[in-house]
């Protein structure tokens, strides 16, 4: 039992961060505003989670301007994809074990 819990990713145990990673896994890239809309989040809330994911190098950032408005695009890194998959496997194992 202990082992399975150890497989969980500390960063992704937060549901918002897990959701952000799931979007970046399913899409090539996603921009800040679309992500905010999709997750029904606020600027500050989302920014703090993005910073945490960036610190772990789970995502990469590409800043540019569209019509003079800042446009920030995020991508999942190879490290992020591996971490997400591992965390998902652990989640599934936990849920399965319970049944």
């Amino acid at each position, binding site marked *: 039992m202990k082992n399975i819990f150890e497989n969980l990713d500390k960063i992704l*145990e937060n*549901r918002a961060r*897990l959701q952000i990673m*799931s979007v970046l*896994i399913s*899409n090539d890239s996603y921009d800040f505003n679309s992500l905010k809309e999709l997750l029904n989040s606020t600027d500050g809330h989302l920014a703090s989670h993005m910073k945490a994911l960036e610190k772990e190098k789970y995502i990469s950032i590409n800043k540019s301007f569209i019509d003079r408005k800042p446009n920030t695009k995020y991508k999942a890194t190879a490290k992020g994809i591996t971490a997400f998959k591992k965390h998902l496997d652990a989640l*599934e194992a*936990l*849920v399965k074990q319970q049944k």
Partner: protein
Amino acid sequence: MKEISEYEKDLASIRHIMERSVKFISLSGISGVMSGVYAILGAVAAYFILYYPVSPFNQRVYSINDYQTLSQLTFIAIVVLITSLATGFLFSSRKAKKYNEKLWNATTKKLLINISIPLFTGGFFILILLYTGHFSVAAPASLIFYGLALIQGSANMYDEIRYLGLGEIVLGLISALFPGYGLIFWVMGFGILHIVYGTIMHIKYDR
């Protein structure tokens, strides 16, 4: 450490979000049925211009070449296109509102870019065909390019749209073998297939 039920909620929440982030789910089944109906009405109008009083199942021996007929047909096609798009927009924005979703989001943008490439290629190709007098292959070409666009867009829509796309392509190819019957295949592809598909989608997802 969280409760197991919280982990279950984690899994459930990302499943939904992953789907919403990739797929444009607001497209309504009813608007598919309606565009099929418009296409059939348009085809009936075209029949009275082109064939009447000959049965549409008889092969047309003469070809459309006078300016007036062509402009009337173009007018019908534009009316069908605009009413279909307007209905699609109306019903889809209603559905989006129901699911508390914005109609115009990152997925919609991606979808439109993806399908516009085959659609515009097909559109220009058909204009060239008409301009060079190859009227008989215009209907098959419209079915084929529309089918290709649907398959291209299926990555960002419900998976079933792929079958609608394949159906349109097959009809288009068969239609190319039978020049002069373009209108019949047009009714089958844009009319009947849309109605069947829209009905299935409505029953499966919208109720």
